[in-house]
């Protein structure tokens, strides 16, 4: 059933240049909503580390200080949350996942990644959608350190997928062979999560 007309509904229209950037079913926000399933972790920076492990020749771990020395890029991207909001032109300072993967040798059998975070959150991604500039680990938002409620000290950002894939409080990537559901993917959300295909829930 595609579109039962809602009597008397006209909707709020945006200029076409904005409308064209909103995936189906999404609406524009200018603030930055916060969504998370549990308490916000507050890991001290001296205890923070970032690890790439799993199907790699030898795992690598960076301390916070070491991570800060990795080359960064500024990204300006649109983000879409499965709860329907889209925020345009968000600005991040981040380390590209390409840069991180250069430090390890990925086993050819490794085709997926499980991102994992403080607090036990996980989310799964195809490795091929993490490379070539498609994903980054950010620690500044809008030229300021990333706030804990938004995933600080560092979060994954994968702008072409719904924002639950952009794991807050990220601590590492585990390269795996077969696709496995992460936290929300086990609770009814889509295994892939492309907003332009409206892959919100399992079966979409």
């Amino acid at each position, binding site marked *: 059933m595609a579109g039962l007309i809602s009597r008397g509904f006209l909707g709020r229209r945006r200029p076409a240049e904005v409308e064209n950037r909103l995936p189906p079913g999404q609406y524009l926000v200018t603030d930055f909503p916060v969504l998370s399933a549990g308490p916000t972790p507050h890991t001290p920076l001296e205890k923070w580390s970032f690890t790439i492990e799993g199907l790699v020749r030898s795992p690598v771990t960076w301390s916070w200080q070491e991570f800060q020395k990795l080359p960064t890029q500024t990204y300006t991207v649109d983000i879409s949350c499965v709860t329907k909001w889209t925020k345009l032109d968000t600005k991040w300072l981040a380390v590209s996942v390409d840069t991180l993967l250069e430090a390890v040798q990925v086993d050819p059998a490794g085709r997926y990644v499980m991102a994992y975070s403080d607090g036990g959150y996980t989310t799964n991604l195809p490795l091929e959608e993490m490379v070539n500039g498609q994903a980054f680990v950010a620690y500044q938002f809008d030229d300021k350190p990333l706030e804990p409620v*938004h995933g600080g000290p560092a979060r994954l950002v994968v702008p072409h997928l719904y924002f639950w894939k952009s794991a807050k409080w990220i601590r590492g990537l585990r390269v795996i062979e077969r696709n496995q559901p992460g936290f929300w993917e086990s609770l009814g959300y889509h295994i892939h999560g492309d907003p332009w295909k409206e892959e919100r829930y399992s079966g979409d």
Partner: protein
Amino acid sequence: MVQPLLEWQAGRVTAIRPETRQTKSFTFALPKWMAHRPGQHYDVRLTAPDGYQTQRSYSIASPPERSGEIELTVERIPDGEVSPYLHDVLMRGDELEVRGPIGGYFVWDVRLGGPLLLVGGGSGVVPLMAMLRHRAAQHSTLPARILYSSRTAEDLIYRDELDGMAATDRTFEPFYTFTRQTPAGWTGYRRRIDAAMLAEVMRPFDSRARVYVCGPTLLVEVVANALVQMEVPIERIRTERFGPTGS
């Protein structure tokens, strides 16, 4: 667990009930009703004559024991796109596209056990009410408390029902706090929820409680951080937030 396919369906509005100045409850009869878990939500989709569509998510207020229909309680956001339509235009007999139930973490049912501590701010009380209505429908005696923050007494949603539940069930107790204005003679809390208030309400339950927190981000942050300090295991603290940072 195999997930059922979530299809859009036309829900017919069978009742609209004002709750407060800003909130109304809408009952929809669903042709393909499915039992939900208290705490889950539905997506609502509106379509304009030219095909323009928009969607929002709203928490279910009714318990799964009310089969064949769902009740959504919606706050009217003055500059919103969907909630003013629901409040000002939608009428009994209209059809609206919905799909759900959605969300599998912010859920509680009697099988999960208690004691149950619910903490809500504003319309964040809605999914918590589904849990309490379910608990009452099951005649559960698992100890339960709700700490509910609202600007004024007039802004409290479901107050009569909460007080009614408490009057007939000694294992349930509601606590209200008002942040803007208190009614004459009010002797209860009159401030934003803080760690001290939470500790008082939680005292008989200590850290065994299962806690569900829903409201504006700031409230949820304060409460969830305080619960962690009180050594409630994080897997027993479940949160649902709305609103921007610092709201």
